[in-house]
């Protein structure tokens, strides 16, 4: 069953096109990384999915129209939009009281047990907590809500590496199960790389790459090409070429591994490198989009 399904999703702000006919489908139980440069339309897409903004086109989230059925939908959906949106005046205990008061699917004991692992005191106000602690608090609240879809928009922006790692570890170990769906946008691609099951690149309001991580691994290969094999390598139409320590690294889409092994050292590309390759081939215009 699809958690999110969009067809021809469009959103414009004045003359700016934020979403330009987006089609996407996210199955239940997947962890989707939505990656794109600043202003690509990530947050707009998430806002549409969360029913925070009206849109054109067709969009179903957990089988509902997120704009018209938002009050209904919000019981099954959780989101962390950006770090530090918890109100600064609220006390930790008040935040727990409030969510327990208004959310039918909130398990307070669970939130308390997550918090017990941190150094956050119940009597502290959010303004007294460090940025990392605020993120921990928000995550503890969200993980204690039995939701079917969790949306994370840059959930770790500005946190140090220890908090970032811990954030995704808890998400995977304590929260994720096969019946939930998670959508995450981030600039820190390397950290979510091993967490994701699906990958989507978005650029200027369009989806430019949409595949599962298995597909990514089987389709894309990176070769550190031996200098004498360069012309042979280029003949296989790499989608991207970069230099590292004087060696050329070429990225191929859908070329046989055996064939590439003859050219040099073959390995799976990182998402960050793949992202740069796909984006620059788009802006260069010499190559088609990566799909």
């Amino acid at each position: 069953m699809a958690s999110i399904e969009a067809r021809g999703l469009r959103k414009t702000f004045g003359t700016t096109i934020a979403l330009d006919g987006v089609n996407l489908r996210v199955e239940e139980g997947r962890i989707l990384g939505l990656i794109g440069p600043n202003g690509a339309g990530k947050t707009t897409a998430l806002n549409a999915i969360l029913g925070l903004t009206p849109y054109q086109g067709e969009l179903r989230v957990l089988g509902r129209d997120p704009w018209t059925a938002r009050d209904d939908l919000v019981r099954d959906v959780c989101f962390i939009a950006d770090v530090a949106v918890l109100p600064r005046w609220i006390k930790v205990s008040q935040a727990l009281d409030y969510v327990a008061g208004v959310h039918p699917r909130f398990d307070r004991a669970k939130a308390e047990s997550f918090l017990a692992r941190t150094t956050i005191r119940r009597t502290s106000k959010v303004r007294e907590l460090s940025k990392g602690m605020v993120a921990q608090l928000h995550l503890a609240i969200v993980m204690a809500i039995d939701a079917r879809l969790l949306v994370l928009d840059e959930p770790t922006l500005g946190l140090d590496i220890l908090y970032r790692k811990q954030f995704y570890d808890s998400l995977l170990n304590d929260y994720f199960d096969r019946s939930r769906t998670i959508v995450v946008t981030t600039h820190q691609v390397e950290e979510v790389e091993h967490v994701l099951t699906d990958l989507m690149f978005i650029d200027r309001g369009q989806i430019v790459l949409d595949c599962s991580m298995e597909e990514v691994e089987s389709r894309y290969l990176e070769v550190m090409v031996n200098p004498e094999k360069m012309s042979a390598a280029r003949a296989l139409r790499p989608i991207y070429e970069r230099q590292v320590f004087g060696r050329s690294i070429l990225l191929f889409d859908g070329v046989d591994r055996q064939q590439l092994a003859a050219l040099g050292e073959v390995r799976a590309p990182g998402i960050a490198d793949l992202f740069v390759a796909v984006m620059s081939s788009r802006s260069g215009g010499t190559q088609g989009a990566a799909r």
Partner: protein
Amino acid sequence: MNTESNVAREALDSQQAAPAVMSVTRPFYWSIRRELWENRWIYIAPLAVAAVFLFGFLVTAGHHVRTQMRAALTVDPGKQRAAILLPYEIAAGLIMVTVFILTVFYCLEALHSERRDRSILFWKSLPVSDITTVLSKATIPCALQLFAFALTFVTQFIMLLLSSAVLAGSGLSVATLWNQVAFYSTSLGLLYHLVTVHILWYAPIYGWLLLVSAWARRAPFLWAVLPPVAIIFLEKLVFDTTYFAALLQYRFSGPETPSFNRGSGSMGYMTHFNLGNFLATPGLWMGLVVAAAFLFAAIRLRRHRGPN
């Protein structure tokens, strides 16, 4: 029964039961509590004002009450009553004005601060609708007026007890004091005044402030004040009339019906009231309609306006 279908049924039951358990009033109740957590000053400040006033009254009570009563006993009954009532009126007025000012600032902040600090993204991630949120914020101004009444009631009662103690100590008549103050009918009058004027008649003012608070990107106070001022100036300039100014004045000064008799200078306006006349004032109903329209617009703005 195999366990799997049990588990499945339990899951189904809990899913169906959950929305039913969560009644409509619960999110509203918690929204009100959240307002009180965030804006503690709206009840602490009036308490502080009342406390300071009572302290001042306590310090001067001995001297004041005696001289006042002696002086009052020698002049005519009308002036006597006015003299005795004066401190009680000051207490009521002080609390009323304080609460009104706080209400204005509360309304201007109510839908603005959550956008300013982006916490609206957190509130909107929880199953509390925009209607519930805005209505809970619109409830606070009304609740504050009732709080002003309760606070005035308690303050005046303490004043009465203090005065009685002083009078009894100096051998003067406590009964005269209680007769003149007519505590319960005065309090009833105050409650009537607060409900009719400060809640019902002023409702469009609160509605306007809440709307501006939901709309303005910054400086909601200026946005609340400048447009009406601009309209007054433009009207004067273009048509050489002052209808809008008169309209605002009418709204702020209260309905000019015999329901309030302010002329006497005593607490008379609180004791001579006429609910029938008040309810028959078209301005009341028009004001309430306008207030409802403002609130409706505020709800729509909170819903449609993106988080930033």
